[in-house]
């Protein structure tokens, strides 16, 4: 038996973003001792740049299990938010008024209707309500829509939260639950050791744990192979615009436009394959602004106070990877680009399975084996 150090723990979670901290918080609620290994102030951090939707509609075409997984998270989000608030006093402002995806042409309407039909016609797919709304129906809820809006798809399960408050609540909750949060711990190596794992950081620190969860976003690609796992993720840049605080006027999240609880209007998004470059391109934000004004012309006078770009963590098919290593049991990988939507699942369901040491059979759909890439050690 090696000498225990302060960092010794049941589980080491690599990554302190929304995925890692939700899992770590969840593990701590299961009575596990947990350490979270994170980088410093400046790092590639999608969790600090996301759009904060808790979004269900349209997700899971091509992987019906993902539709079910998403709906389950949405259904448990209220309870999750309540538990966080009870523990930390932080209201993460989760609201589930239903969400609209605005559509600007008949062609967009048809394409969207077809997508949703195909999604919901998949065998064994979870059932829930959604609706294709015409312009008049959308205008009933939001009379200020622009003339270009032809209609929208609507799903009553969609909602949003304040994702920065969520991140803070998770970190606050971790602290209150005894999780050791270790910033400036960029992991260089993971090695099996004494039936558990040893992590060596860039500055030469060592952390030992019984289990390890790789929830390191883009860095999962580098780390997963160290424990016989595979996480072929790539960055996809998205831009977001936020306006000054405005009196409440928008009651629903509208796809890529939403008003935050603090009053700012967030407008996204874009899709670029540019590596780890988070430079903002004014032509991209301009295009986003232009489309937003076609949907809600009354946004035009609002002042933009910030724009930013963040990097989605995307697998080849866009669906998550959750997997335990077969060659080094006790090592897990969790990666997805919906860290907000799936936070409830990560904290409540996934963490419970990791604490128990087994991912149930239904998780096999989320194995990286689906990419037919043999895992390399």
């Amino acid at each position: 038996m090696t000498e225990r150090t302060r960092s010794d723990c049941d589980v080491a979670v690599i990554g302190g973003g929304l995925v890692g901290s939700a899992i770590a918080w969840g593990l701590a609620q299961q009575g596990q001792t947990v350490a979270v290994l994170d980088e410093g102030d400046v790092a590639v951090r999608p969790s600090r740049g996301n759009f904060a939707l808790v979004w269900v509609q349209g997700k899971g075409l091509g992987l019906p299990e993902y539709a079910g997984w998403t709906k389950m998270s949405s259904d448990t989000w209220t309870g999750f938010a309540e538990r966080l608030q009870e523990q930390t006093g932080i209201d993460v402002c989760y609201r589930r008024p239903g969400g609209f995806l605005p559509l600007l042409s008949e062609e967009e309407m048809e394409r969207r209707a077809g997508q949703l039909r195909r999604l919901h016609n998949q065998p064994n797919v979870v059932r829930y309500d959604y609706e294709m709304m015409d312009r008049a129906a959308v205008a009933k809820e939001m009379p200020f829509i622009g003339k270009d809006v032809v209609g929208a798809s609507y799903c009553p399960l969609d909602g949003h939260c304040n994702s920065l408050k969520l991140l803070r609540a998770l970190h606050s909750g971790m602290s209150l639950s005894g999780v050791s949060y270790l910033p400036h711990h960029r992991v260089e190596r993971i090695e099996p050791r004494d039936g558990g794992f040893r992590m060596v950081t860039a500055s030469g620190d060592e952390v030992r744990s019984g289990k390890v969860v790789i929830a390191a976003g883009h860095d999962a690609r580098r780390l997963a192979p160290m424990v016989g796992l595979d996480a072929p993720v790539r960055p996809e840049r998205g831009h977001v615009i936020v306006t000054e605080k405005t009196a409440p006027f928008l009651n629903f999240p509208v796809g890529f436009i939403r008003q935050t609880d603090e009053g700012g209007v967030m407008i996204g998004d874009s899709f670029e394959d540019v590596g780890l470059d988070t430079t903002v391109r004014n032509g991209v934000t301009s295009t986003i602004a232009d489309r937003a004004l076609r949907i809600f012309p009354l946004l035009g006078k609002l002042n933009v106070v910030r724009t930013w770009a963040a990097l989605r963590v995307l697998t080849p098919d866009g669906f998550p990877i959750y997997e335990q290593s077969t060659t080094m049991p006790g090592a897990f990988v969790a990666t997805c680009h919906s860290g907000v939507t799936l936070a409830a699942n990560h904290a409540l369901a996934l963490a419970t399975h990791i604490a128990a040491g087994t991912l149930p059979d239904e998780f096999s759909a989320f194995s990286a084996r689906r990419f037919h890439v043999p895992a390399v050690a």
Partner: protein
Amino acid sequence: MTDLKPRYDLAVIGAGPAGLAAATLAATRGLSTVLLDEQAAPGGQIYRAITRSPVRNPNVLGTDYWHGADLVGPFRDSGADYLPGAAVWSVSRTLDIGLSRDGAARILPARHVILATGALERPFPVPGWTLPGVMGAGAAQILLKTSGLVASGNVVMAGSGPLLWLLAWQYLRAGARIDAILDTTPRENWRQAMPLLPAFARSGYVGKGLKLLLEVRRKVKVIGNVSALRAEGDGRVQSVVYRQGNGAEQRLPADTLLLHHGVIPNINLANATGCAQSWDEAQRCWVPDVDGWGATSVEGVAIAGDGAGIGGALAAEHRGRLTALDALHRLGAIDRATRDRDAAPHREALDRALRGRDFLDALYRPGKDFRVPADDTIVCRCEEVTAGQVRDAVKLGVSGPNQTKSFLRCGMGPCQGRLCGPTVVEVIADARGVSPAEVGYYRLRPPVKPITLAELASLPKAEDEVAAVMHH
């Protein structure tokens, strides 16, 4: 107004001494040059309203102020285009300048860019500093220069640094009354400053500065060694509470409280452009990394004047000319030898202007209690975040300002960290027991000044930029 050319050899941003001097030299020597400035008239802050000040008696503002007029005349004759009232909200690495004027935004390309964005007053976070009636001393000076307005009723000035004394002197000249000056200069600063005194004694500051100081001290009650300060009032400032050293709290009635703790570079545009910056221990602020010609880490972008480190108005002028000469060289208008030869007199003048500066830096460095305020003090005015909240975030493991921004929103408001960044960094550094250099600074992005969504939407878009949004 000037009709803008579709593209310029050189765009200079900011019409203070550095920008005026840079644009004048560059345009005179043949570069197609545009000077973009947020204000309605040239002069920057130091020579604010130099062409149209309503203050008729020249003795009120003093000869150093009126020197600004010497820069404006040659600029007008230089052939440079001038665009006042233009807020520059972005400079890209490809040297496309995003500007907004009269509610319309546009992109102006240039082959070379000189940022001359000057300085702003160092944040002076004390309890109550957000109350109406509490202002920067620099703000009061702008009111005097631009509108001939002086504070009336009970007026208290507090802080440290040359500008505070200059304002007091100008107020006295204008016939205004000052109840008291609360001098926060820490006594121990003298120890650090003394070895630097000989160089200062040979500088141009010393005679003028001393005379001004004595005149103010003769006429105004100066309360020294002030170690703590707060503003109190219901809806606006009504009194100032302070302590001398470890003494008991004292109270002064105040209708206006003017705060000053020196100036620091206005780095937001340079930071958002991607210019590397470093912590300057002597001036206790972040300063963009520049070489002797003002060149930054971004190809084609230079910084002149106080925006690249505080040197004062005269130094700014000379630094402006040096960056302009380097721009001429980089754009192929002059060879290296010509640049170096022509730079020589400006370098000499710059050295003279900077002489004694480190004495002022050492003497007027704000005391720690003012740089690292107590828990109940608001540090982020926009999002109303206190120093205590920042410390709580550090306890959670947050190690730098970009994470406190995510956790607390400090720095996310419209001022984009200008009024909280230096303090947040100092508070985190103090709580972690490391240097601000290790803590880092906010990563800023355009727009550094707000533009409307309609303005943003109106900008030109490349095909791939449209595709990045619309193809999904």
